């Protein structure tokens, strides 16, 4: 006897019926409304006092291309410095040594507590405080020669970034299970090797999204270095509009370049995340 024959009657067989698609009237309506608003705004800009031909012409002039390449060079180098500092400070903060702990906490406090633009100006004007830098009697240089816009921007952006990155890294390190430290210790690993081989690779999975966020922030924060004469894209755009007065056109040029760079970074983040999620997303994918 079949098991189904003993079931109660009066329940129709639904197994062959399809689930009908829902009409999403509200979605169509709101989408249309938004497109209409965008069209009005777009029309306003098209008819406004903007010479779009200038935008097209200046989008690829050498000064702008050089500017965006300087922007990227600075963003990558300052972020690298920030990550190195961030890892070191996060590890110091998590150590049981009260001296290391206090130094780390003081660093984060100081550089998160003051505006980035102020820090950039301080680095750039360091010569006012220390006319010469060096070891007394052995070697010294004039601070004006050393504190170029490039180095000032790198130090200012990188050290400031380190203060933020250290907290991201600390969160990542704390997210790794205590059992991982114990397992590494049990096979005779020392603290540094445990950190490098076992803990950080697992922490990277957690910190990639916030670090990507920080990097996107960094790309745009480089524009602040325009105040200390670093020739990044906004600085160069400003120099051009000082000469030809096409202010809005050149700001749009710079804006388009920032948008393009950030758009490219998002798929890169996906690749990184996949790399660091080795072993954890295997079942989901």
């Amino acid at each position, binding site marked *: 006897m079949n098991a189904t024959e003993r079931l109660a009657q009066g329940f129709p067989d639904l197994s062959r019926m399809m689930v009908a698609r829902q009409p999403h009237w509200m979605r169509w309506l709101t989408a249309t409304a938004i497109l209409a608003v965008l069209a009005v705004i777009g029309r306003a800009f098209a008819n406004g006092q903007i010479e779009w031909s200038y935008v097209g012409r200046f989008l690829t002039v050498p000064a702008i291309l050089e500017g965006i390449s300087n922007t990227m060079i600075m963003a990558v180098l300052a972020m690298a410095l920030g990550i190195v500092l961030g890892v070191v400070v996060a590890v110091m903060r998590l150590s049981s040594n009260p001296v290391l702990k206090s130094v780390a906490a003081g660093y984060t406090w100081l550089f998160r507590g003051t505006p980035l633009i102020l820090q950039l100006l301080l680095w750039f004007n360091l010569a006012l405080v220390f006319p010469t830098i060096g070891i007394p009697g052995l070697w010294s240089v004039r601070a004006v020669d050393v504190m170029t816009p490039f180095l000032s921007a790198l130090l200012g952006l990188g050290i400031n970034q380190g203060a933020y990155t250290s907290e991201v890294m600390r969160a990542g390190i704390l997210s790794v299970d205590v059992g991982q430290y114990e397992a590494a210790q049990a096979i005779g690993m020392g603290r540094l090797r445990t950190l490098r081989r076992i803990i950080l690779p697992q922490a990277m999975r957690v910190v990639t999204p916030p670090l990507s966020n920080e990097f996107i922030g960094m790309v745009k924060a480089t524009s602040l270095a325009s105040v200390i004469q670093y020739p990044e894209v906004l600085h160069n755009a400003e120099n051009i509009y000082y000469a030809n007065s096409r202010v809005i056109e050149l700001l749009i040029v710079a804006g388009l370049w920032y948008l393009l760079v950030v758009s490219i970074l998002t798929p890169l983040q996906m690749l990184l995340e996949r790399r660091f999620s080795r072993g*954890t997303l295997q079942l989901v994918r």
Partner: protein
Amino acid sequence: MTKPLVAIRSVSKNFGDFQALKQVSLDVRAGEVLCLIGASGSGKTTLLRCVNQLTPIDSGGVWLDGELLGVREERGRLHRLTERQIARQRLKTGMVFQRFNLFPHKTALENITEGPVQVQGRKQEDALAEAMELLRRVGLAEKADAYPSQLSGGQQQRVAIARALAMKPMLMLFDEPTSALDPELVGEVLTVMKELARSGMTMMVVTHELGFAREVADRVVYMDHGTIVEAGAAAEVLGGPREARTQAFLSAVIR
């Protein structure tokens, strides 16, 4: 009488106000399988962790293979060893955890070769060959390239045993190795442990598997409130315990 492989003498350990171990002394001879039983909070896991210094002791001493662990004696005072010296001492013991603690970002094979290659500086190809041999021994040769998340609990624990064995320890410590497993997976892990015991490995096993203890252990130690209540041959302690507390524990466990 030959010197014991592990000598634990008057070891005490407090966690804040909680006395986890009170003046515990115990010997483990080479080749012996010792099972530690007792209720949770009785100190059996703490005692095990003191032997490979995951938990530093407050007072007393632990000797492994004649070497005092964690401290050195100099002019009547004890000085703590450095991190590096302690790491070197740990190489003599292998540890298997309740929650496996495999490295999730490494494959089964990489988990096993990590210690030999990174810590002991062995050649990659030698370590790989030995790791494959160990995986065969625990019956998981076909899972060499699987990540821990792709393995069942029982398989993960067997990889963890292989990882500990890869360091060629003289003593294996098991901290409730089957407690986190689904009931149908306990057998495969116990089988591997029995095979290991038969091969002559010295083992200290914290366990609730009294069947395993009865079958495999040379000696059973019953602990309660940070002290050893009763220790002796497995058949004696499990079959006819002398202490009232041991009797109460056993009758509560064997329903």
